[in-house]
C-alpha cells in the first residue's frame, strides 16, 4: 500500500512539476536574450487552454491517430515511475531498468510517428521521417552512455547509481553525453526547435501539427515529463547522492528539494545551450549525435581505467 501511495505521489509530482520546468527554461532563455518573456507558469495556462478547446480530427485519420496520445502519455509516465525521486529505490524498480526505459520511450515515439503519417499531411510525414531518423541515431549514443554507467556501477538498474557515493570523471562525461542526447530527445536547439512552425526545420512540431485540443494537451504534457525524466537521470548520474530508503516520508521531501536545485542547474544549462547555439541542418544532427556517442566511448574508457 505504501508503495502504491509513493508511486501515486511520484506521478503527481511529475505531472505537476514538469510544465514548470519547461516554463523555467523558457523564462531563463528569454532573460538571457534581455526580454521580459512569458511567465514561468505559461505551460500550465497553455495546458488549461488546450483542455478547454474542442478538437479537430482529420477526415483521413484512423484509430491510430486517436490512440497515439494515450500511448505517448502512458509510456512517458511509466518511464517516469522508474526514476527514484523521493527514495533510494523506486518502488517500481522491479518493473524494468535503464535499458527498459529506452524501449519504453521508443513505444511512445513509434505511435506518435505513426499518428503523424495517419493524417496524410506531408508535414506529418516529414516530421515522422525526421523524428525516426534522429531517434535511430540517438539510440546508439544513449546505449553507449548506459554501457558506461553500467561498467561503472556494475548494473543497469537505476537505483544502483542513485545510491553510489563518489563523483568520478566517467560519470561526469557520461552525464555530458546524456545531456546531448536529452537535447535531441526533447527536441531542443540545435537538433529541433520547439518555438517555430517552419516546415524546413520542424521535427516534433511537424508530427503533432494535426493535433488540437485535449489530445494535444496530453502530448505536450508527455513531452514535459520526458524532459524532466532525462534531467533527473542526468542529475543522478553526475551527482550520485544517497537517497533515503523509503519509510520516512518527511526526509524524502527534504531530499526532493535538494533534487530540485540540481534540476534547476541542468535547466539553466539547457537554456544556455539553446540561446548560444544555432539550429543545425538535419543531416548535421548525425555529427552532433556522433559527438555524444564519442563522449559515451570516453566515459567507457574512463570507467575501464577506473577514474
Amino acid at each position: 500500500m505504501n508503495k502504491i501511495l509513493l508511486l501515486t505521489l511520484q506521478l503527481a509530482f511529475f505531472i505537476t512539476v514538469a510544465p514548470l520546468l519547461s516554463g523555467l527554461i523558457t523564462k531563463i532563455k528569454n532573460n538571457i536574450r534581455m526580454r521580459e518573456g512569458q511567465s514561468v507558469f505559461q505551460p500550465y495556462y497553455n495546458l488549461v487552454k488546450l483542455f478547454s478547446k474542442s478538437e479537430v480530427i482529420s477526415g483521413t485519420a484512423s484509430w491510430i491517430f486517436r490512440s497515439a496520445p494515450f500511448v505517448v502519455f502512458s509510456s512517458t509516465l511509466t518511464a517516469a515511475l522508474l526514476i527514484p525521486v523521493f527514495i533510494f529505490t523506486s518502488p517500481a524498480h522491479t518493473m524494468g531498468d535503464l535499458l527498459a526505459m529506452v524501449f519504453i520511450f521508443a513505444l511512445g515515439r513509434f505511435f506518435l510517428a505513426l499518428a503523424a503519417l495517419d493524417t496524410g499531411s506531408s508535414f506529418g510525414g516529414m516530421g515522422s521521417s525526421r523524428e525516426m531518423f534522429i531517434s535511430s541515431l540517438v539510440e546508439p549514443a544513449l546505449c553507449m552512455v548506459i554501457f558506461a554507467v553500467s561498467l561503472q556501477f556494475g548494473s543497469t538498474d537505476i537505483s544502483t547509481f542513485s545510491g553510489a557515493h563518489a563523483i568520478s570523471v566517467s560519470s561526469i562525461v557520461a552525464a555530458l553525453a546524456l545531456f546531448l542526447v536529452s537535447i535531441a530527445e526533447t527536441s531542443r536547439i540545435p537538433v529541433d526547435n520547439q518555438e517555430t512552425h517552419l516546415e524546413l526545420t520542424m521535427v516534433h512540431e511537424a508530427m503533432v501539427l494535426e493535433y488540437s485540443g485535449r489530445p494535444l494537451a496530453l502530448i505536450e504534457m508527455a513531452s514535459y515529463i520526458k524532459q524532466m525524466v532525462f534531467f533527473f537521470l542526468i542529475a543522478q548520474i553526475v551527482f550520485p547522492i544517497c537517497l533515503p530508503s523509503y519509510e520516512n516520508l518527511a526526509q524524502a521531501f527534504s531530499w526532493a528539494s535538494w533534487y530540485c536545485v540540481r534540476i534547476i542547474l541542468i535547466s539553466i544549462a539547457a537554456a544556455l545551450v539553446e540561446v548560444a547555439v544555432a539550429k543545425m541542418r538535419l543531416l548535421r544532427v548525425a555529427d552532433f549525435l556522433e559527438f555524444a556517442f564519442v563522449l559515451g566511448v570516453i566515459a567507457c574508457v574512463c570507467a575501464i581505467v577506473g577514474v
Partner: protein
Amino acid sequence: MLDLLPKHIFLSDPLSLFFLFVIFIVSLPSAIYSFGYLKGEYPLKKIILSWFLLAIFILSMAAVVTAGNVLVFLVAWEMMSLASYFLVVFDTTHERSIKAGTIYVVMTQIGAAFLIAAFMIMYSYARSFDLFALKNACLAMPAQTKNIIFVSLLIGFGTKAGIVPLHIWLPYAHPQAPSHISSIMSGVMIKTAIYGIIRFVMFILGVSAAWWGVLVLILAVISCLVGVIYALMEHDIKKLLAYHSVENIGIILLGVGLAMFFTSQGLPYLAVFSLMAGLYHLVNHAIFKGLLFLCAGSVYKATGTRDIEKLGGLIKTMPYTAAYFLLGAMAISALPPLNGFVSEWLTLQAFFLGALNVIGGTKLFLGFCAVMLALTSGLAAACFVKAFGITFLAGPRSHYAKEAKEVSLSMKAGMFFLSLLTIVFGLAATMIIRYLTRAAGSAMDIDISHMQFSLNNITLNPQAGKSIYLSPPLLALVLLVLGITGLVIFCAWRRKRSVRHNTWDCGYYRLDARNEYTATAFSKPFRIAFSFFLLPYRKTQKIRESFYHVRSFTYETHTIQVFKKYLYDPVLVLVFRSAKSMRRLQPGSIHLYLMYIFITIILLIVFMRWF
C-alpha cells in the same frame, strides 16, 4: 567400415525439442492460412501439389533438427532445400520466380558443399556418422583442423541463415514464394541453420578459440546493420521483410556468438545466458516474422501489389490485417511489452553483464557490439514506422488500395494465432526463460543445475546478486493503467465536441493522396546518411514542350547493391568467362572426343602401373 545402422537416428534433447516447437508453432498457422490464401489464386491441382510440397518441407525441417546422425541430417537438409526450391518457383509463370529459384538453389548447394566437406573431415577422425561419436572424436582433434571445420561449417550454415555477405539469395527467394511459404522459410527454415551452428559448432566441435566467437559477433553485427539499412530502402513489402530476416539472424547470432566467446573465456554461466537470449530471439523472430509475412500476403492477396508506394489507407478497408501487422511491427521493433522487446533486452543485458566479467579492451568490443544492436533496433523501428505507416495509414494512393477487401476467415485465424503469441511470449517471459535455459545448457553440455537465474513469477533477474529487473507483465499492467488514467483525464470534464475536418492543406486546395509522404521520401534522410554504403543515384528525365515549359518530369532513385556488384558479379563474370573458354574443348567433333577417351585410357594405364 561405414556405420550404416547408426545408434542414434533421431535425437530428442531439449535443444532439438525446442526447435521442433519453433517449427510447428509457425507451420501450423501458416498451413491454416494457406487454405484461404491459395483459394482462387491457383487451380486445384496446383493447390494439392503445394500441400504435398509443404508437408515434405515441414517434415524435412523436423528431421533436420532431430537428426542424430550426419547422414540423416544431410539427407533431410537437402530435402528441405529442394522442397523449398520448388515452393520458391511455385509461380512458374513469373520470370522472376525462376531467377530467384536459381539463385537460391545455387547458393544453397554451395553451402551444402561446405557442410559436406566439414562432415567428411570430421568423419575421417571419428570413423562414424553418429553425432556422439563425432563429439568424442572432436575432443582429440588438432586445433588447426578444428579451425578449418569451423570455418566451413560457418560458411555452410551461414549461407542458409543469410549471414552477410552470403545473404544474397534471401531477398530474391523469400518474396517470390507464396506468402505462407515465405513465412515458414523466413520464420523457421533459416533457423535450422542456427540449429546447425549450435549443434555442430558448440555441441560437437566445442569452441576452442576466442576468435570464433569474435568472428561470429562481427559477422552478426554486419548482418544486423546491412539487413536493416537495405530494408529501409525497400518498398516491396515482402523484400523489406526478407531483409529484416537478415537483420534478425544477426541479432540471434549476437547471442550465439557471445555464447561462443564466453565459453572460450571460461564463463559458462554467461555463455548459457547469452545462448538463452539468442534462442529467445530465435523463437520470437519466428513468431513475428511469420506473422508479418502472413500479413504481407494478405495485403498482396487483397490488392494484387507488393509495392507499398501504391498502397495506403488499408487500415480502413482491412482493419484486422492492419491490427495484426501493427502487433508484428511493434514486436519486431522491440517495443514493450511484446516478445521482441524481451529478447532484445536480454541480448543487450548479455553484453552488459559480459562486459563486467571480462577485462580491458574486450569490454569496449562488447560495448560496441551492444551499441550496434541498439542502432539496429532504432533503424528497425524507423523501418516499421515506414512499412506500417505507408501501407496502412493515410489515404489510398492507387485503385488497388482503394478496392481492397478484408481477407477470409482462415487467413485471419492464422494471423490471429501468431499475433496472440507475440503477446504471450512477451508476458510469459519468465516461464519461457526457464525452459530455454535448459535447452541452452544441454546445447553446450553445461550443467545448469547450480546456475539458476533467480526468477520469480513476474521479474526476471539475469544475474543473482546484481539486481537488474525486468517484468513484462508488470510493465504491461502499468502501461495499461496509466493509459486508462490518461483516458479518464481526457474525459474528466464535459466532453467537448470533436469536429471532423480535412487535413490542414495550408489553405491552397484539397489535399489528395498524391501529397502524401511516400516510402522513398520517408527513407530519404537515411539514404543520405548511409550514402557511403548505399551509393544512391538518381535518374531524371525532362520532356520539354519548349525551352520554358516542361511537359513531364520523371524522377527515379536507386541504390547500388554493394555485395552484388562488387562481390558476386565479378565472380559470375569469371565463371562465365571460364565456361566460355572451356567450351573450346567441346567443339562437337567426334574425332576429338575419341582422342580424349584414348588419352584418358593411356593416362589411366600409366597411373595404374606406377602408383
